[in-house]
């Protein structure tokens, strides 16, 4: 057990270092923040001086070692654009992104599972066909287009919902702000959450349908029917429960991508989360913020994967036996 966890942790560290290195290499080519910082009027001496003071003139490997060393202490330096600590900036933006991602994930689950079940049980009917077509649209439409269409419909034409921002937020303690506790916050949350949820919803719908169809063909369902159980007990007591294991796994993994790929949704709706921070950092070549963001996202993915691996280990006895055999 311990060896397994250690091995997984070592892999996680390797992944993190690789991500940090690739991110760092990319930054060598995104541009030079000096011009942005000093404006059009600075002299070349001033530019060279600031470059030296920020350590941007050191060779890339030196800058990288410096970067990793600081990152280990959670220190990503000051944002070049805002002049504030990167860790503070990210901590400020994290609640917005997490709330958006969680709302979207819950929405996708709450709608996706029943719709998937319905599509499986009513296979071949017009309703099922419709659900499948709509889900195909959901998978294939780009997020920004969905966002813009929702804004056009609900903000511009119907005037029901606001088109941008997070609205009124309530501070919970000193480091968390929530839009979940105010009507205004919810109004602002609806469109971005739906936009972000559409792809996940379609994915879950199709997954649940496929798994459900698979399970419904298996022997124990046939035996259950032979025992004279009601449709309801067969479908929801036996079939759905077994369908949910892979669904939960996928949803867990997708949560990582919801957080990471909220960037587009956040940009469309000017949602003040980490993704918007990242996009603005990119257009300014604000290297410390970009680096911290990429590392954080990698960390989220690695952490979720690690948890899932460990859960498998706990749930699936076969894994334990194989590893044990390999270990001796």
């Amino acid at each position, binding site marked *: 057990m311990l060896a397994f966890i250690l091995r997984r942790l070592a892999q996680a560290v390797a992944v993190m270092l690789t991500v940090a290195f690739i991110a760092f290499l990319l930054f060598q080519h995104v541009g030079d923040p000096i011009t*942005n910082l000093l*404006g059009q*009027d600075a002299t070349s001496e001033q530019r060279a001086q*600031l470059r030296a003071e920020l350590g941007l003139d050191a060779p890339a490997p030196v800058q990288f070692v410096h970067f990793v060393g600081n990152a280990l202490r959670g220190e990503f330096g000051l944002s070049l654009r805002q002049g504030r600590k990167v860790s503070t900036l990210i901590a400020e933006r994290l609640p917005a992104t997490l709330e958006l991602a969680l709302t979207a994930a819950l929405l996708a689950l709450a709608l996706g599972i029943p719709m998937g079940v319905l599509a499986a049980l009513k296979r071949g009917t017009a309703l099922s066909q419709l659900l499948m077509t709509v889900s195909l649209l959901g998978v294939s439409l780009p997020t920004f287009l969905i966002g813009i269409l929702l804004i056009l419909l609900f*903000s511009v034409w119907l005037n029901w919902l*606001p088109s941008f921002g997070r609205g009124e937020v309530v501070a919970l303690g000193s480091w968390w702000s929530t839009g979940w506790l105010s009507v205004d916050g919810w109004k602002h949350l609806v469109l971005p959450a739906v936009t972000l949820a559409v792809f996940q919803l379609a994915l879950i719908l199709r997954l649940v349908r496929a798994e459900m169809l698979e399970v419904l063909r298996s022997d124990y369902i046939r035996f259950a029917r032979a025992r004279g159980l009601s449709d309801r007990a067969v479908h929801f007591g036996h079939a759905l429960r077994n369908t949910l294991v892979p669904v939960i796994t996928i949803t867990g993994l997708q949560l990582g991508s919801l957080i990471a790929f909220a960037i587009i949704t956040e940009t*469309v*709706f000017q949602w003040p989360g980490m993704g918007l921070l990242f996009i603005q950092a990119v257009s300014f070549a604000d290297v410390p913020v970009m680096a911290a963001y990429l590392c954080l996202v990698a960390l989220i993915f690695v952490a979720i994967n690690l948890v899932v691996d460990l859960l498998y280990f706990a749930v699936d006895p076969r894994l334990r036996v194989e590893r044990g055999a390999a270990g001796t």
Partner: protein
Amino acid sequence: MAQARLFFLGALGILFTMASATAATLRWSGASDLPSWDVHAQNNALGNGIHAMVYEALFRYDERFQVVPELATGWKALSPTQMRITLRRGVRFQDGNAFGADDAVFSLQRAMDPASNFGVYTQGIARVVKVDDATIDIHTQGPNPVLLRQLTELRMMSKAWAEQHRSTTPKDLRSAEENHAHRHANGTGPYRLESWQPDVRLRLVENRDWWGLAAGRKTGNVSEVVYTPIKAEATRVAALLSGELDMVLDPAPADLPRLRATPQLKVLDGLENRTIFFGLDLFRDELPGSNIKGRNPLKDLRVRRALSQAIDAAAIQRSIMRGLSAPTGTLVPPQVAGWTKALDQRAPHDPAAAKRLMAEAGYAGGFEVDFACPNNRYINDEEICQAVAAMWARIGVKARLRTLPLVTYFPMLQRHEASIFMLGWGVPTFDALYALQSLVRSVGAQGDGNFNVGRYSNPQADALIERIKQESDPTLRTALMEQALVLAKQEVSHIPLHHQMIPWAMKRSVTMRHRADNRIDMPSVRVD
């Protein structure tokens, strides 16, 4: 009875109109947020414009871009290098402290700090001395005819407040400490900073103790200003259409026809204080990547004239800019001292003449040349460059276009890697020296030629620019600037293309004056 009710409703209506007339909120948006509230930290156009609603300077520009006193009341040159400035009495900062000579001296010195990016506005100032509580002397290194213009961007901060909050120097990007003045403000101006969440929301409320109220400066009715940056163009415009915003500073050009056609909205068009032109490498003896070896074709005046005449600026104005540009033959926009109508006239679009000039210069077969453009800096920058490359192809010049985002484009320019490049130049001082010194003057110290990327060098122009720096007679000085601009035009030091227009979109109920510096004069804005 019915009549009485009607009367009552009418009275109620009037009451409501009056209420909204006395206290209105202006909700507006632009693509980006201001970088800092520290008024001496970053020289950012949007930031300076918003700062001016809270902080005031000794002088300001009126609507015709003439310098008028703001926190100063009088000024007098005691000698060519000493300017005595009398300060306005009875002015208070928003925290209640009185404004006086100590604050003025402190603020100017703070802007002169090396950590400040306002060097271009403090250059030439040697020292600032307090004479008495309401008088200061500014000593300059030499005669400085643009001193008052420079002072319009140097805003006044309370010395006591800065000391109390340990913010006596501008935000330093190199230090790990956040400066109090970065997110707090305490000016003397018409509005007070109520709250600021960067990239989310900025709220200003009326300063009821503003000295300008008694002076009749407030002609509008805006008591609350809410600025929300929205990065996505489509969302910004959608928020205006849905009524969530009253005004958008930078609507996308593609959305303008729709906005103009919307009955509740209006679009104000106006020239921006910015000119777009092409620069040329006039330094190298051989252009990298060109098929012409051993000489630089751009050094031949005939080639430069041919390149200029090959460009159909009117076609670019019509089909790429959709009318939102004014073709020009010079490097500064019309609001700027030194500009004349004759200068503004472009050499006529004439491909045949351009071809003849090319043949005379010995390039009848044309040549290949590198051509660099930004793709996210100026309005339609990439499209313009594609069109220009095609126009040049017609006279045989094969311009190999490469487009870069601004974060890599400008460092590349500063390494002098481009043979022909696009650049836009604004003139915040509304005085042609600013452009001449940066673009035309040979590269040197103290800001000379700091954006003369093509390294043009002409002793005659340099001598003129040095005289302009010293000349204090306004008429003679303007004539000298005109002369320098004429020289640059004759020599085709650059190929000017057009002045950019910047349309503002807003609700019909909003009344404001369009300004070439892209700033809103908030005290005069009305929302009905």
